[in-house]
């Protein structure tokens, strides 16, 4: 009979849950993790990781069409969608196995099944309708994540109308594709399928693509996408989808005008809803608002001893935010010194479209709305030697400073590899550097990162290379 009494139980093995469990074990807590499907959650199995594998393929495809520019020639360039997908699945599988190993290594007890709160300090686990175990712990961390939202009339069918999940395992690249929603998920798929040869249309209800990004970045991205050949409709909605044998007819409404679009497939990327159902929240003090669990700054729910983290809790819907919440939650429980609540302004966000987009902190508008007297810096990739050498001159960095204190309020980037660069600004923000420290920092030449330095210099009227 397996041990059923723990110091802490985590429900859900995604990037929030498994990190929380490992951290708890590191802190000396006897820890259990309950997961019904796959370690690493959506992120690792159906999100961040497999899409990056797919996008690597589409990046190569894109480069293969630019061979002449770099002095190569090749004939008969083809790809096998099955192999592209198989590689992506293999990557996910490898990493998921890695998580299982990490849990074992940290002596986290793992329970395979569906967990439900079952009274104070108790969690019942069942598999295929059969009870597996009844676990007890003083602290239970809910990390059940989220799933794709569907809108009335736009329900996915798994065939013509996909969610992210089907979009990740296509048997072939569709000739034409409609992507509903231009957030990070929608735009990444739009970019992938476009670079793999599909004719892609994006419909966004708000007035710009990547609507959470800085307005200038959104505008830059849109211009770039349209130049590549993506069709983008903002301020528009998909009112209805009519399926036929070979295609889907979408009725797109924009400013009172209707139009129809025939596409082979549709991807719905209109947000997510929290997995709050069937986990035993009924008759507890856990409050749920708009499909997400309400928590305080230490991730405590309204029910003593029950905590919630990650996508289950609230935006931003990011794996690294979930992981960090898991750590904060568990360290707080363990009484670790110097634990600080999550600072949402220090959470970077990355979108792996082409060109890539990355940001941290406040947009210019948010900063102005918050009453800051801002200092804004810009720097284009065209002024950067490495970007030109790479053949990636399209991009821009934007910095937002508090003119009074020199605090870096936000940084916004679009261009090649900016998802790998944003951590520099994130470290700067986390360490609370001011413009002085950033200006004094020596950035290596020649690198794309020099654009980050220049964008700081520009905010203070000292830009060198533009």
């Amino acid at each position: 009979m397996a041990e059923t009494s723990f110091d802490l139980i985590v429900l859900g093995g995604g990037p929030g849950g498994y990190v929380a469990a490992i951290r708890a074990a590191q802190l000396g807590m006897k820890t259990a993790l309950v997961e019904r499907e796959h370690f690493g959650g959506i992120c690792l199995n159906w999100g961040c990781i497999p899409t990056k594998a797919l996008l690597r393929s589409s990046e190569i495809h894109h480069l293969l069409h630019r061979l002449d520019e770099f002095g190569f020639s090749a004939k008969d360039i083809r790809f096998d969608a099955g192999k592209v997908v198989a590689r992506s699945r293999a990557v996910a599988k490898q990493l998921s196995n890695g998580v299982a190993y990490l849990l074992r290594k940290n002596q986290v007890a793992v329970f395979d099944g569906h967990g439900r709160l079952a009274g104070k300090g108790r969690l019942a686990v069942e598999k295929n309708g059969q009870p597996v175990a009844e676990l007890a712990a003083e602290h239970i961390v809910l990390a059940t994540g989220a799933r794709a939202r569907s809108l009335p009339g736009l329900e996915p069918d798994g065939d013509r109308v996909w969610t992210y999940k089907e979009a990740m395992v296509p048997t072939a690249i569709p000739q034409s594709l409609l992507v509903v929603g231009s957030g990070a998920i929608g735009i990444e798929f739009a970019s992938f399928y476009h670079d793999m040869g599909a004719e892609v249309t994006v419909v966004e209800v708000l007035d710009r693509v990547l609507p959470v990004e800085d307005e200038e970045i959104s505008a830059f991205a849109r211009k770039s996408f349209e130049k590549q050949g993506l069709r983008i409709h903002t301020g528009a909605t998909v009112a209805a989808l009519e399926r036929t044998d070979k295609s889907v007819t979408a009725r797109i409404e924009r400013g009172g005008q209707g139009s129809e679009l025939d596409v082979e497939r549709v991807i719905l990327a209109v947000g997510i809803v929290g997995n709050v159902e069937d986990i035993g929240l009924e008759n507890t003090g856990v409050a749920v608002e708009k499909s997400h669990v309400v928590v305080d700054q230490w991730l405590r729910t309204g029910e003593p001893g029950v905590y919630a983290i990650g996508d289950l809790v609230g935006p931003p819907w990011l794996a690294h935010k979930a992981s960090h919440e898991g750590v904060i939650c568990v360290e707080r429980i363990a009484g670790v010194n110097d634990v600080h609540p999550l600072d949402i302004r220090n959470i970077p966000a990355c979108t792996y479209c082409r060109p890539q987009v990355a940001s941290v902190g406040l947009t210019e508008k948010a900063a102005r709305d918050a009453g800051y007297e801002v200092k804004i810096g810009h720097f284009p990739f065209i002024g950067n030697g490495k970007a030109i050498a790479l053949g990636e001159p399209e991009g821009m960095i934007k910095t937002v400073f508090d003119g009074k204190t020199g605090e870096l309020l936000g940084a916004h980037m679009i261009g090649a590899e900016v998802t790998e660069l944003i951590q520099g600004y994130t470290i700067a923000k986390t360490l609370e550097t001011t413009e002085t420290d950033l200006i004094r920092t020596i950035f290596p030449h020649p690198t794309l990162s020099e654009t980050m330095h220049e964008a700081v210099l520009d905010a203070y009227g000292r830009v060198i290379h533009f």
Partner: protein
Amino acid sequence: MPIEILMPALSPTMTEGNLAKWLKKEGDEVHSGDVLAEIETDKATMEVEAVDDGTIGKILVPEGAQGIKVNAPIALLLAEGEEASALRDVAPASPEPPSAAPSQQEPQQERETSALPAVTTGPASLPASAPSGERGDGRIFASPLARRMAQHAGLDLAAIRGSGPQGRIVKADIDAALSAARGAPAAPAPPAAAPRPAAAPSGPLVPPAAPALSKERVAALAGNPPYTERPLNAMRRVIARRLTESKQTVPHFYLTIDSEIDALLKIRAELNAKSEAYRISVNDFVIRAAALALRQVPAANASWSDEAILLWDSVDIAVAVALDDGLITPIVKAADRKGLAAIANETKDLVERARAGKLKLEEFQGGTFSISNLGMYGVREFAAVINPPHGGILAVGAGQQRPVVKDGALTVATVMSCTLSCDHRAVDGAVGAQFLAAFKRLVEDPLTMLL
């Protein structure tokens, strides 16, 4: 978080010392000012005082331990209400940064500690523990943003408890200090009187929240003219604290006397012409005269305590020496028993080493009486602030040719004005006057000084 009690620097050159004796044991309750331990260097034995109230949670360095680096933690103090379990998180971390640091930070430490004890004239008046943003070597750990915000708001970082990693002061701490300051009663609380929150291990010299005299406030009072800042070093803070304390708690009164020094100048020239082995200054005559006058009027060689007036057996005269950024008071011990040449050579040596930062602890801490001479700047007369626990300080002006009336006729003499500041609790006006009269007799008839 428990407060680290650090190995204090007892002299400018001290880098390590021995823990001679613990006077408190684990579990003992201590109050600010209690003597915790005796520290011993090859030069002296000194006491470590508690700076905060609390309970000795853990003694990290056992009695008899030798070669403990300055600023290494020697014990952990639990603040009021803090559980012993809080020690668990601190104890393992403590050996790392502070004890490992000195080897790498030797130059900086040397520099900072050399400034530190300069103005402490009483033993163990150095902070034995530091506020949490400070690691004991004077360096305050704060984020650049926190630094700038504190600067703008006129907050003293030393007064702020850091909540970031390893006690680093971060923006949130400044925000908290600012909102606490805003939430405080309308009248800005005088820092010294404000009770220190029991749990906050703030430093000994600084108020818990915003300083009453922030830079911004001072600048505003001046009408916001442009200015440059000189950061406060430890010496400057000690000067500010001790002299403020002196002026506020010691009832000063002042007596001025004029002495004609033509005879003294003549003898000085003659003596200096006789040998190259010494060069006697006017100030050396003043030291000798003051020492002999104190011997003649022992009631003036006195210090106040709440229990008794202490009449000192010896006459140890502290001589104020200006440094680039402050002052130090090396001591001519038993000055009444030393000849002019001895005083001259000793003073010269002390002043040179004081300016080089090479004085030993016992050479500048203590004394029974002070002399401050600004005559070389042409100052005619001034009144000095008593350096506790001394009962008096003699402020010496320039020797100037002035018209004097002698036997009803106007004539010219070189006159030196000296002003005695007395602690009225220990030295009354008549005693001060007797001392000055004796001093004047000696100065005006310098041959009597040579006896």
